[in-house]
């Protein structure tokens, strides 16, 4: 599937997610309206745009002049009204290009759709969404915004496929943490193929900056089950030396090593009070996101 804006903002996916509400676990900085809990209430006065009134909006924000002209309720939106700044951190390294024989999407495609869906979802709530892509370092960095043009910009960014092998994720995360001045929500979409200790060390930096971090661990089914049968030459997608292997002989050992790695990641995330969610590319995207959101709502 191509990363077309239309496809990325698949209405079905969005409709499914709209029934749920994304709730931040931690109180984030900024003025929020609606259901977001925030210590700062409507401190911003810079008009940004109108939007349709939805039940729950404060009546004082209704633009009565517009009502007089159009006979419809419109809410006046201000820049500071955006109560959540969310940064979608997308791994675009070469390893994300892996697409198993049974999978419809590569990890990169899958992650992009997930990112687009979440961005779309958040933007509907007038939350600000930014995107960071990284491979051997931060490749692109777009500050959160909540306007439609911003959304289109984000979608264009997600479509880009240039990639480089990952290097040290810790450095990348440190760099990113430095760039994000204000507290917000970080959603990391990556296969996290790096040393777990290094990854956790990088994540710790976000925690230190009080960011809330959600990790979507995007994997192909092949990477979990290692289904190969015949002797195969495995060429590293990130420049590793090729390995000729008898998959049957190695499977058990591989699965064991992989499980251990995942366990370490999960444990590390739990210790850092971060959400860890595994996404496998053969799962329906909306189901995966919904499941996560339900889970999250339950935790709140």
């Amino acid at each position, binding site marked *: 599937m191509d990363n077309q804006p239309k496809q990325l903002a698949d209405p079905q996916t969005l409709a499914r997610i709209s029934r749920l509400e994304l709730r931040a676990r931690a109180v984030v900085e900024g003025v929020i309206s609606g259901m977001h809990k925030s210590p700062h209430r409507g401190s911003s006065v810079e008009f940004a745009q109108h939007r349709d009134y939805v039940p729950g909006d404060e009546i004082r924000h209704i633009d009565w002049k517009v009502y007089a002209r159009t006979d419809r309720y419109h809410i006046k939106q201000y820049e500071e009204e955006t109560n959540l700044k969310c940064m979608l951190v997308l791994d675009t390294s070469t390893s994300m290009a892996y697409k198993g024989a049974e999978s419809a999407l590569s990890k990169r495609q899958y992650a992009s759709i997930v990112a687009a869906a979440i961005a779309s979802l958040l933007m509907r709530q007038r939350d600000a969404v930014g995107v960071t892509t990284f491979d051997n370092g931060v490749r692109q960095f777009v500050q959160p915004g909540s306007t439609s043009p911003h959304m289109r910009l984000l979608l264009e960014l997600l479509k880009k496929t240039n990639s480089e092998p990952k290097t040290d994720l810790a450095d990348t995360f440190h760099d990113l943490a430095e760039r994000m001045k204000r507290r917000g929500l970080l959603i990391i979409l990556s296969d996290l193929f790096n040393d777990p200790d290094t990854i956790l060390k990088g994540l710790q930096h976000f925690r230190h900056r009080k960011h809330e971090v959600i990790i979507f661990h995007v994997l192909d089914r092949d990477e979990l089950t290692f289904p190969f049968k015949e002797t195969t030459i495995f*060429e590293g997608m*990130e420049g*590793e030396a090729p390995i000729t292997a008898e998959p049957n002989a190695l499977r058990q*050992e*591989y699965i064991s090593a*992989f499980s251990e790695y995942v366990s370490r990641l999960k444990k590390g995330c739990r210790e850092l009070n971060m959400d860890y969610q595994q996404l496998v590319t053969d799962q329906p995207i909306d189901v995966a996101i919904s499941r996560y959101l339900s889970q999250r709502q339950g935790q709140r």
Partner: protein
Amino acid sequence: MAFLNPVFLGFLSLVGVPLLIHLIRRRKLRVVQWAAMEFLLQSQRKQRKRLRIEELILLALRMLIVALAVLAFARPVLRAGIPLFSQNARVYAIIVLDNSFSMDQRGPDGKTSFERAKESANSLLTKVLKDGDSVSVVLASEHPESLIGVPSYDLKAAARRVSSLKTGDRGTDLLASLQAVNRLIKASKSPVKEVYWLSDDQASAWETAGKDTAQSSWQDLSKQAMLIWTSCGAPANERDNLAVEPPTLGRELVTPRLPARIESRIFNYGSRNRDDLLVNLTLDGKPAASVRIAVPAGGSATARFLPFVGTPGTHTGVISIADPEHVDNLVRDNSAPLVVRCRESIKVLLQDIRPQSDPAKSESFYLLNAMAPGGSEESLAPHLREGPGFGTQPLRDYDAVVIAGASSMSTADARALGDYVRTGGGLLIFPGSDTDAARLNADFSTAGLLPAKLGPKKILNDEAAITLNPAAMLHPALALFKDTAAIDIASARFTVYYPLEPTAEDSQSDASRIIARFSNGDPALVERKVGMGHVILAASSAGAEWNQLALKPAYVPFIYQLVSYLGQGAVAHRNLHQDEPLFLTLPLNQANKPVKVTTPDGKTSTQNSVLDARGVTFNYSATSRSGLYTVSSTAGAPDAFAVSLNTAESNTSMADPADKLAHTGMPASRYNIARTSDQIHTIVNRARYGVEVWRTFLWILLPLLFLESLLAQLFGRRG
């Protein structure tokens, strides 16, 4: 090890296939761009060494499997009889078919041993031997015969000839047959020779062939040919057999008043006693007498008959066990033929060289009275000739000549007497008081008629007097004196006699034999066969001066037996052994006339009589079959003679060929034994090509395949 399909060995290069596949697989492996390399590296690092070993084990196993499969297709054999590079060579097969009459024994399957042997031979000729192979067929018996001597390539014709064969009447002599086979082997240039010996494994056949002296012949065979011995006989426990030995006739020539004395031993070559065995005598096709005898298992008993044959002429008879067709499984030897000749009387010329007027001192007096008691001519018709010379009447008019008080004789008499005896006459010589031992020895020796040399006369006093020893009466004519209860011949005392030294060695055909002895062991009577006739020399006189025999009741039967025995020699023997020629003297008017002989199997042949120094004679030598032969000439009524079986062949007890062949000195690899006809194919293939082991290879292959699957599964290498 050799291979029957060595061409397949070329496929051994297939062993390289697994290696090749292994290498190609390495070259043409599927390539996968893989992200989670770190985990792969981790697991592979741990397993690399083990994987390498497993890979090598599987590779070796697969190469071994291919090698074994190829070797199995190449049909490996152990101990090949034919060298590897000669396996397509043409085979020269000699089929040795035992056709002795014991092969007629029926087995539990209802077939005779010979029928089984023919089936085996037929199977060999049609199935084992192939086009291009050649064959000879030898009939093995005492007189082996090459049915097909020159190797024949027409196997079908050979099969036809074999299928029409019948058994002979002969016994078996393996050694003679072996030598015949060796001659054929030697004459053949074929590189691959096989001898198929089809026999009933009779123990008696090994009498000569089992001796150490026969080993070189067996080894000669094994050096050039492979021997495949096939047992065609009945099982060892089915070989019980009764046999009638050729009858012994106390006299072949009888008179109407003189009964024939016929005896035959009945042998029981079986494991159970025959306590009440009925033995019948038929004469001229009519029952003449029957006796019941008890024959112990493994032993024998004698059936005795004393029939009067009645009218003069030739009488044929048969001694048979009652119900000969069913009493045992070998019918052939359950009866034995015989011929008895009857004349009005037996003419005897009694020559008294120096007649005495005193009857007490006259030897001829006693002799005449013994032969014709009271002067009446009964069965013996003696004619007394006193003084030297035989007179004008030709000797051939007499059946026997008795010389009392023998001494020297003229050259003409010696020649006449020699001719007479050689053409079948009987001569009985008694020394007397005027005998000059040295001259007698010289004259009779010159005539070729001396059974024993007379030594210096021995004169004993009354105390040292000796008697005849009844136990040493070995001659059939004297057998009745063994029983002293009826006639006590030992009561006569002898005080004067000549020690007799037999002249010819025992091994010679005209050997002298001692037929009666004195109580001190010295010979009393010595017999010598001369030509067709017999000469008996007595050690003491026929009168009463030197001994008391003439005064004893035993004297009359003693002289009667000796003279009637010798008298029958004047006519031709009518009871012959196999291959013994028939010799007949015919009247002069029958010279060069055809004589027709009808054999027991109904075949007739005609040949002319011959006139020579012995008169008109007819000689017939084709007497290989046993039974009654009839001879017809224009001279008068048909004559007959009987040829008996060699009953040594009747003992069909079995010898294990494995034991016997093991003692021949042949290498075990050069002979094989088929216990049944069915085994012959397998045995021949094994003998020819060795023991095929491809099955063993497959049996090894199967667990290896299983092991390969198991290991491949275990090692995770299954594609």
